[in-house]
């Protein structure tokens, strides 16, 4: 087999950026975290590449969650928009963005969510889009409600939208949640607070965006998502005398 020179890998995130797998405040992590140390997987071809989807994964209208089943979803209509960037600030163009969320009353369109809040027949909470050439995405949806989840006494999840991102490499795959500014429920939410670094935690919170707010129609929220950046090439970073 012909030897190759691998391109630069992806930078490790600073400690505290991501939650630990074992987080006492979130009870369900107890039996779902490994107890042995992770092995290091160097970034080789499988890790430096990843699925690059085209428009075939997105159906027309999937960027508008408010119109399903022929009617309009109930709730505060919002525009959620932003950019997908890498750690060097470069846009990630033409990448799939998948979202899912609860309805305005905090109820998910799912058979195991049975708490006493009404379903909305016009809202499934599923959305998909592709970023454009500038890495920008835009969804129209309704502001999700908070919901109770039994993790601790009187436990309520802050309103959030689940986001799934692929970037351009297996190494950049990210599933996260977008929160809303000044949510009074942050203080008691172990999932939000599982992120050790308070600055990193704030990167999950969207900003109210009056520019994106449309008169007599919808409130705007802006949220940029940052995926891992590349290591510099050896030519740029290695000292000569190494």
């Amino acid at each position, binding site marked *: 087999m012909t030897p190759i020179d691998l391109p630069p890998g992806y930078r490790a995130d600073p400690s505290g950026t991501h939650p630990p797998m074992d987080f006492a405040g979130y009870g369900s992590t107890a039996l779902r975290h490994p107890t042995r140390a992770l*092995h290091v997987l160097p970034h080789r071809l499988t890790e430096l590449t990843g*699925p690059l989807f085209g428009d075939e994964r997105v159906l027309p209208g999937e960027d508008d969650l408010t119109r399903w089943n022929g009617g309009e979803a109930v709730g505060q209509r919002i525009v959620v928009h932003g950019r997908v960037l890498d750690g060097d600030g470069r846009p990630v163009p033409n990448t799939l963005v998948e979202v899912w969320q609860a309805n305005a009353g905090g109820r998910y369109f799912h058979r195991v969510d049975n708490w006493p809040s009404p379903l909305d027949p016009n809202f499934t909470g599923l959305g998909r889009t592709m970023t454009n050439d500038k890495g920008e995405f835009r969804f129209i949806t309704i502001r999700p409600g908070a919901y109770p989840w039994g993790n601790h006494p009187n436990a309520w999840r802050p309103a959030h939208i689940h986001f799934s991102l692929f970037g351009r490499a297996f190494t950049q795959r990210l599933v996260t*949640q977008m929160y809303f500014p000044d949510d009074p429920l942050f203080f008691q939410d172990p999932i939000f607070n599982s992120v050790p670094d308070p600055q990193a935690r704030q990167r999950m919170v969207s900003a109210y965006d009056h520019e994106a707010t449309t008169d007599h129609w919808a409130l705007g929220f802006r949220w940029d998502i940052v995926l891992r950046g590349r290591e510099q090439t050896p030519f740029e970073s290695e000292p000569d005398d190494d």
Partner: protein
Amino acid sequence: MTEPLGSTPSQTVGPFLSIGLPWPDGPDVVPEGTAGAIRIAGTLADGAGAPVPDGLVEIWQADPAGRFAHPDDPRGPVASGFRGFGRCATESGGAFWFRTLKPGALPCEGGRVEAPHLDVSVFARGMLHRLVTRVYFPDEVDANAADPVLRELDPAERALLTALPQPDGTLRFDIRLQAAEAGPETPFFAV
């Protein structure tokens, strides 16, 4: 160079990932009837040995020639039409499966060769971050012995990352998130 931007933190997929993530053709890395297709199946279990019914398993892999339809492959992208990606939500028994083609071996640094493998991501409620593991193939004894990733593991761990052939031809690959009486923990990787 400007200061790098901090990454957005990972959060759990939560209990309702099945609203947003599964695709009807998710497990079909290749369509039914594809010549040479293999079936890989397993169960996802937790530290009590219980099946995880609200998880998602994804795979990413090279094509049978060991190539990727991706511009960052220094050998150049190929347009084989091979998706290389699969995703399958786990069912009530924690079961997941994929129909795919066996990938080829991959060149890497220093003239070494990686044995054919799949990269695997695991997501579930109760997991604040994905876990990553790899599937290797039982008919690649020599290539597996030379694989630079497997060589860093002990023999028991290597065995856990090697799929088991079943009488019906399926390759079985079970994932255990945490050691339990029922069995050892799957080796996982930091990427």
